């Protein structure tokens, strides 16, 4: 038989003004199972809590109901008090007779009757409460960072500087991401390489960063604090430990004419290559598709010339398992490519803009490579078709972005700013040139951003035309751009030497596949979703996984770096403890009842439900049942309401407890 103690609070006069608290204590005291009931002026005060603890000990109470304010206010306070008196904290419940009663009713009699019922309901509930032990999970204080763009680099450095080991996995042969390709950066016009490469070198030299480039995530298991990540290190054909980075192989490789994607195909590279001279690590990789040795079995020049004997044609992919406690996803973005059909659209690209057909119609990233001092032209702006300097250049914004009919209704956020930057870089380099910009709106929120944009117009004299381009076509060696200026309502026609398209920022191709491996969610475009748009912007809903950079949505460098540092801070918060403690409000499966339908698995928003094999003594499979991982379960109870055989129960909110409440009414 339970010995329940009920403590009715006056809350000064907040409750006692409308609720007859003495009557409540007296009435409730008559309920079966209630061994003690009293009322007190301020239950949450020190003496109030003292009274509670004393009663637990002296009256040998088994359960406690505190009738006072909202549990959202003081449930923690009273559960702590109960715990310090030696009872399990989950044997204490609060009855809300302030926010839900005394404050919202005036009639004293009515309010008192209601309060008695509310307390009675909680008395019936608490009888069914069970002892719940606090759940603790150990934390592996190592972090995985996926993607080595500026986001991943920043997060990795922050976490490693805080004293924790980091495994950084980059798909490409070098870290750096898109920022390594940029020329100068808004809003300050400092050179991207100059601010980026020192950070890349820091990563390479950091004693606590383990860098895997040319590698991908194969498989992820586990949960917060305890992930097991399998990394696939793709065969590089060069042994990293032996290679000194001298570069002789690249010089001697007879295959020379492979378009370098890093330079947007403007430059050429050999079959054994590093994507750009400042690559980290500075270890080449053999592009097996284009290497003569791999294609015909002949050649082998690089192996012959390599002093330390680092070239290994037999090398195979290797799988490595890394235990980590937290994961930062920083896989960045792709650019909308004009030739392809955008997702969710039946219209193929922007044929009307001639990209891919007219060689001097390029995209913004290609312009970055042209303008970059370390780029294929040494920073000279020239036409891909004939190498001439363009004297009239047209920039078109919002190509793909904000185009619902193409399936991309969002704003790519960075294009207004980088187009303004491009017009400036152009005018700095081509003094007698003229830049035109077709734009819908100029979106320049951000520190010093609008000033920067104005400067491109007021000082650098770029001509901004508000309107869309309807058509472009080649005429001789010119590109005729036809559009409208909607601010004055006239048609415009410009004979340009070059056209630059500000193409939309899109999620990585294959972002969904990676998300499925990680068990994180993504939006309809495949940008990764944060747990809460305002209050948890860098956490995934899946515990222990964090987001940084453009993989979560279009972002410029300042935003990317802020988010990366924020994600790192979250990881450090997690690593500040040896054990993770969590509220034991988690679901549990009754294996005897479970029929293995896995409806629970389908509805669980956290991916907490696993399949578990039950075997007999001989090891024969008896059945497969659901198992809820307590480290992952968020405690929503959706599984329980869904389970057709009533075999999964959410601790703290069992059917028994709820039915007891309903029956008390």
């Amino acid at each position, binding site marked *: 038989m339970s010995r329940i103690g009920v403590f009715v609070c006056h809350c000064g006069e907040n409750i006692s003004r409308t609720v007859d608290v003495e009557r409540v204590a007296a009435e409730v005291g008559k309920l079966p199972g209630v061994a003690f009931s009293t009322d007190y002026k301020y239950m949450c005060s020190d003496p109030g809590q003292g009274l509670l603890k004393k009663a637990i000990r002296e009256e040998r109470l088994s359960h406690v109901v505190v009738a006072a304010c909202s549990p959202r206010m003081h449930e923690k306070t009273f559960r702590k008090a109960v715990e310090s008196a030696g009872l399990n904290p989950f044997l204490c419940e609060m009855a809300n007779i302030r*926010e839900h009663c005394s404050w919202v009713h005036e009639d004293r009699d009515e309010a008192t009757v209601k309060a008695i019922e509310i307390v009675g309901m909680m008395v019936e509930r608490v009888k069914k409460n069970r002892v719940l032990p606090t759940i603790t999970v150990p934390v592996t204080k190592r972090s995985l960072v996926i993607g080595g763009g500026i986001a991943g680099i920043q997060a990795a450095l922050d976490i490693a500087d805080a004293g924790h080991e980091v495994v950084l996995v980059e798909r490409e042969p070098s870290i750096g991401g898109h920022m390594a390709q940029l020329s100068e950066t808004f809003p300050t016009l400092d050179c991207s390489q100059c601010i980026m490469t020192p950070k890349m070198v820091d990563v390479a030299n950091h004693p606590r960063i383990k860098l895997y480039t040319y590698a991908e995530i194969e498989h992820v298991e586990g949960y917060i604090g305890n992930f097991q990540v399998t990394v696939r290190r793709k065969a590089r054909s060069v042994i990293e430990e032996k290679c000194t980075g001298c570069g002789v192989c690249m010089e001697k490789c007879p295959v020379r004419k492979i378009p370098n994607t890093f330079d947007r195909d403007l430059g050429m590279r050999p079959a054994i290559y590093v994507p750009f001279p400042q690559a980290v690590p500075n270890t080449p990789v053999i592009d097996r598709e284009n290497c003569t040795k791999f294609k015909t079995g002949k050649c082998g020049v690089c192996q012959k010339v390599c002093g330390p004997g680092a070239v290994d044609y037999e090398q195979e992919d290797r799988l490595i398992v890394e235990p980590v406690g937290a994961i930062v996803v920083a896989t960045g973005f792709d650019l909308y490519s004009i030739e392809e059909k955008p997702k969710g659209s039946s219209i193929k690209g922007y044929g009307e803009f001639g990209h891919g057909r007219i060689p001097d119609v390029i995209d913004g990233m290609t312009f970055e490579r042209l303008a970059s001092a370390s780029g294929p032209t040494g920073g000279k702006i020239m036409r891909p078709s004939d190498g001439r300097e363009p004297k009239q250049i047209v920039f078109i914004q919002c190509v793909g972005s904000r185009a619902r009919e193409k399936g991309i209704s969002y704003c790519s956020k960075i294009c207004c700013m980088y187009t303004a930057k491009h017009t400036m870089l152009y005018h700095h380099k081509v003094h007698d040139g003229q830049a035109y910009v077709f734009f819908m709106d100029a979106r320049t929120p951000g520190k010093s951003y609008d000033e920067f944009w104005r400067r491109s117009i007021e000082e650098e004299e770029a001509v901004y035309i508000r309107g869309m381009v309807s058509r472009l076509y080649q005429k001789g060696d010119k590109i005729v751009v036809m559009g409208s200026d909607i601010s004055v309502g006239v048609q415009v026609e410009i004979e340009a030497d070059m056209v630059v398209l500000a193409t939309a920022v899109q999620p990585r191709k294959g972002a969904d596949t990676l998300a499925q491996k990680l068990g994180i969610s993504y939006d309809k475009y495949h940008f990764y979703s944060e747990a809460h748009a305002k209050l948890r912007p860098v956490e995934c809903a899946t515990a222990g996984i964090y987001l940084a950079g453009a993989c979560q949505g279009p972002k410029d460098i300042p935003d990317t770096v802020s988010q990366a540092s924020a994600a790192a801070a979250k990881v450090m918060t997690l690593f500040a403890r040896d054990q993770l403690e969590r509220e034991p409000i988690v679901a549990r499966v009754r294996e005897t009842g479970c029929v293995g339908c896995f409806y629970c698995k389908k509805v669980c928003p956290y991916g907490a439900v696993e399949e578990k094999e039950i075997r007999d003594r001989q090891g024969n499979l008896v059945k497969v049942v659901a198992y809820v991982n307590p480290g992952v379960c968020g405690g*929503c109870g959706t599984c329980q309401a869904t389970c057709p055989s009533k075999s999964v129960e959410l601790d703290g909110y069992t059917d028994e407890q709820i039915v007891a409440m309903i029956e008390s009414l």
Partner: protein
Amino acid sequence: MHTEKEKHTFEPKIIAFVCTWCTYAGADLAGTSRMQYPANVRVLKFPCTGRIDPVFILKAFQQGADGVLVSGCHPGDCHYIAGNFHARRRFAAFRKLLEFVGVDLGRLQFSWVSAAEGGKWVEMVTGLTEQVRGMGPMQEFKELALEEQWSGSIDTPELQEAYDQI
């Protein structure tokens, strides 16, 4: 200001099933803002609307509720990401079922009340209380409960045996 309260002959019993994060907090806000509403409602707190089994609604009607209110976070705002989407689907089907068995859907209300919508909570509770008051007491399920009790007791060995064979 103290207004003279109307006395009614019938005071309906309203049971509300709400999630902790939005509607319970919204009801708390109504309290801290000292709004006033009829005292007929009893609130049961759940972690999420996803936890609310339609059986609880039936149980509430059997137990003498004249009206039931189910409320949680607005779609997209669920604290547990998607619990309320599952709940919404579940209740859509459940409403149809109730309608089919002849329950007046005016007695059952689903809504979204956020933590900031104390006023909406008050409107919701007041509205439902008045509506149900107009409809009179809910009889059907109380009778059902009695029937269930009657057919539910297996008190003879013969009955038990027959029961075990099914």
